[in-house]
């Protein structure tokens, strides 16, 4: 039997996805799950804006509002933006460097299931006594005082999901270091691979502080610890430090891959090599490094004293320099190019002014004395939505259109794509631009309502109308996806025609073993070089056709994660229900048991034989 002939029923397909270790299928799952959480987070955003559309509104109650804002922030950051980016990293990065798969396919699956179960656990709080309500930052004095189990769901859910992210980050690092195709030197790596690399390095160093903070919180809330209880010698400011030592690099973990996506788009749709490639790489690394030096700018008003504030203020301003370099390099990339305004390019063009606006307000906040006014006001809300929506979300939407043909061999409708863009883009500016002024006019953030006649009524209404526009944009996108999937017209490879990097060279649909022969990389934008030289077969290859070694599918990652999911309920109800400890032990036993099985049982994978490969047309 040929090892690559496949025809499956529905049940078999489900089983295939539950057990898959293929980076392309894991990418699809990241995208689907992240997309679902994005919609949930978006609905929460709509509820927030409906509540704040008019003064003294009682659409939602005060306590529920705090749950909604907490879940909106937590969901969007941890369960939507990061996983969707992880989806694109999984889908694109291994192909960009000509790898067979990621370095540890088993861990890749484990990382995904950890994220998904963590996210599900967190969202179950809605149905099990109430969601967390101390904000996505969950500052310790409030999170310790919060009644019910909401914060417990937050701490345990994020701990599980965070482990998945951490595993994913390490996996990408090892992949990029070890599995680049021959000729793919570091300084020939596409920018998206570079930004994946740096973002993964940030994950490596930024997630441990969060893990520690969350463990402290878990111990304090569920097991009688006193790390943050000041009446018992603890200190709440420690949480703030741990959170932001993680939290600031986190925003670069999000924005750097976004920069990578836009770098690809600008070059592709300008038919021009990325301007100042080496300085772009340098700027990426520098931003990643400086990202660890500035966390206390989230804490200017905590009372760290003028020296700490002054140092962190100046350090923060320094980040503007490499970020500015990037902006100008992008501008010079399109300058002198041949600009084709496709949907992805439209997002990239929309990103420049939006992100510059978000960046400059960041510099304003870096001025510590001014930040005393801006901090925790609506100005901050406007600022971080300008960078996260104007940067990360626009990149995600651009990448959905850009990489859809790569992932699914179908083109999303360009027409609907542009409608999505205009609704989303106009709605975005309508919603958030005006919030800068609300903040300057004295409106604090995270308020469930506001009194009439404080000068905020009209601007809040405008902001809410903008949010509705964004929702319409997202709905059009969903319609676009459904239509495209139903139509299922094959797009073929290099659908944008000007593909420059290796991922566009692969035949469609992408064979599960990726490149039949590992390609030889002859420079930056290697596929472009081959096309310019008239290479009709796609790439120059670095090896003769030979057997390919592939990993076996495995159900163990799923079971391993399920164990932690069960254990989390034991921890949650510790001291409250009799079954808590047995359930905790059972869950951990399942996880440790599956780890043992994985370690003891040999799994050598399988080989695809040369003859089968020769017969396989690779989707032509």
């Amino acid at each position, binding site marked *: 039997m040929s090892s690559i002939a496949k025809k499956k029923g529905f049940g078999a397909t489900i089983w295939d996805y539950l057990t898959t270790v293929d980076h392309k299928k894991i990418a699809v799952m990241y995208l689907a799950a992240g997309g679902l959480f994005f919609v949930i987070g978006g609905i929460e955003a709509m509820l927030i804006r409906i509540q704040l559309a008019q003064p003294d509104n009682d659409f939602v109650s005060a306590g529920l509002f705090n749950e909604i804002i907490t879940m909106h922030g937590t969901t969007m950051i941890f369960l939507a933006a990061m996983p969707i980016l992880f989806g694109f990293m999984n889908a694109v990065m291994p192909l960009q460097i000509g790898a067979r798969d990621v370095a540890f396919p088993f861990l890749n699956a484990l990382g995904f299931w950890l994220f998904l179960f963590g996210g599900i656990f967190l969202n179950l709080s809605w149905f099990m006594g109430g969601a967390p309500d101390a904000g996505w930052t969950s500052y310790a004095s*409030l999170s310790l005082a919060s009644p019910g189990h909401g914060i417990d769901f937050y701490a345990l859910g994020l701990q599980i999901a965070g482990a998945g992210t951490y595993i994913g980050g390490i996996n990408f690092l090892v992949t990029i270091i070890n599995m680049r195709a021959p000729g793919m030197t570091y300084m020939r790596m596409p920018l998206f691979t570079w930004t994946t690399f740096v973002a993964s390095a940030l994950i490596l160093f930024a997630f441990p502080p969060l893990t520690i903070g969350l463990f402290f919180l878990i111990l304090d809330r569920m097991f009688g610890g006193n790390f943050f209880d000041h009446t018992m010698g603890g200190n709440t400011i420690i949480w703030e430090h741990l959170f932001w030592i993680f939290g600031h690099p986190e925003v670069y973990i999000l924005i750097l891959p976004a920069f990578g996506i836009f770098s690809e788009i600008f070059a592709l749709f300008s038919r021009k090599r990325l301007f100042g490639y080496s300085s772009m790489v340098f700027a990426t690394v520098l931003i990643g490094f400086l990202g660890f030096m500035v966390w206390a700018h989230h804490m200017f*008003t905590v009372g760290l004293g003028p020296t700490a504030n002054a140092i962190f203020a100046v350090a923060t301003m320094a980040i503007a320099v490499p970020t500015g370099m990037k902006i100008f390099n992008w501008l010079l990339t399109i300058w002198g190019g041949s600009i084709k305004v496709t949907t992805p390019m439209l997002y990239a063009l929309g990103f420049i002014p939006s992100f510059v606006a978000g960046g400059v307000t960041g510099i304003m906040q870096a001025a*510590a004395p001014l930040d005393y006014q801006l901090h*925790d006001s609506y100005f901050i809300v406007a600022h971080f939505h300008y960078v996260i929506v104007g940067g990360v979300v626009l990149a995600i939407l651009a990448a959905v259109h850009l990489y859809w043909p790569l992932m699914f061999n179908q083109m999303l409708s360009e027409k609907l794509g542009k409608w999505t863009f205009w609704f989303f883009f106009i709605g975005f500016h309508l919603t958030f631009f005006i919030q800068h002024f609300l903040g300057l006019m004295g409106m604090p953030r995270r308020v469930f309502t506001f009194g009439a006649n404080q000068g905020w009524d009209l601007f809040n209404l405008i902001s809410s109308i903008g949010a509705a526009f964004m929702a319409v944009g997202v709905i059009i996108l969903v319609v676009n996806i459904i239509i495209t999937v139903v139509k299922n017209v094959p797009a073929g490879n290099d659908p944008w025609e000007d593909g420059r990097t290796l991922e566009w060279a692969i035949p469609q649909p992408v064979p599960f073993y990726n490149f039949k022969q590992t390609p030889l990389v002859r420079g930056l934008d290697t596929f472009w070089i081959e096309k310019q030289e008239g290479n009709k077969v796609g790439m120059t290859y670095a090896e003769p056709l030979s057997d390919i070694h592939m990993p076996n599918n495995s159900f163990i990652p799923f079971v391993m994660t399920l164990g932690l999911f069960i254990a989390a309920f034991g921890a949650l109800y510790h001291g409250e229900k009799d079954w808590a400890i047995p359930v905790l032990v059972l869950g951990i036993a399942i996880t440790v048991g599956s780890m043992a099985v994985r370690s003891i049982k040999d799994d050598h994978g399988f080989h695809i034989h040369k003859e089968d490969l020769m017969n396989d047309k690779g989707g032509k």
Partner: protein
Amino acid sequence: MKTTMKEGFDLAMMRGLKKWRLFSLLAALTIFLSGCGEEYLSTLTPAGQVGRDQFNLLLLSSAIMALVIIVVVIIYVVALVKFRRKKVGEDVIPKQVEGSHTLEIIWTVIPILLLIVLAIPTVYYTYKHADVAAMDQVDEEGNKTNVTVNVTAKLYWWEFEYPDLGIVTAQELVVPTDQKVFFNLKAADVKHSFWIPTAGGKMDTNVENVNQFYLEFDKESAGLEQGVFYGKCAELCGPSHALMDFKVKTLEPKEFKVWAESMKTTEHVAADDLATKGEEIFNTSCITCHATSGAGTAGGPAPNLAAFGDRNRVAGFMPHDEENLKNWINDPQEYKPGNLMPQPETINNGKKFSEDQLDALAAYLMGLSVEK
């Protein structure tokens, strides 16, 4: 809308800013920005030196950033107009430029210079606004020369103690104008943040340590729309975070002295029978938590009501009338979810207060005044 053009210009003409070449941009910005917001609440209508320093920093940083945006937008628009594929031709392969060292240096050095321009006042004001050395200054007789207020933030109200004057009040901060007023800030339960937007930036009230800073007020609040500046809690602290407002009354130093003296010697005499009846109810049900004498120290379990009749709001956020007061007393949870005031049932033999009781309480409470 309330600031005139002349005032707008005056602000921009601040010494030190004069020399910036960005002057005209600054002036335009000032006029634009000061058109926004209410003068008792907006950071754009500063009412003291600290707020003004911060406002000037806002203008300076906005101007620098506007400059950056203009440059970016110009390059962006020109590139977009000139280099569309429709224009350059469908089959043209542009020159594959690697980069330019000269340009790289330009867009590295110029931003650094711009940031230095911003960094200098940033560092200067950071130290200036943190300087609380004058807090302990005394005159020849050993009296403190400046007013210090100990602020304690509690689930959802504010306690203001004047340790050198031996008085305490709540919800409505009273301060003298034209001098530095120092603050010791602390939270009693969870973290809050103390913010009077017109006077200057916020400072967190932590649970484990005292934060110190100062503000200045150079305008009497009497001239404002409601006779008070608005204060806000700026850190999420629970369901009623949004309702944790306070008000600030600024008096010229002489009047402040008079106010402080009358706070020290609060002697409330119920005005009529109804108020006397209210006082009796108050003394049975409320006095365990609420003090009615302004002399004292911080640490009360509930807001001090010595000057309740003079206040601007009921419960910190509702219009100050008997109707709201009665509603509030009879169902605090309805109006400020999560607050710690007992429901009437727990202090009134398991029942809500009757309408008569409420009338009496309201009459008594509205009569608690030091200004009348």
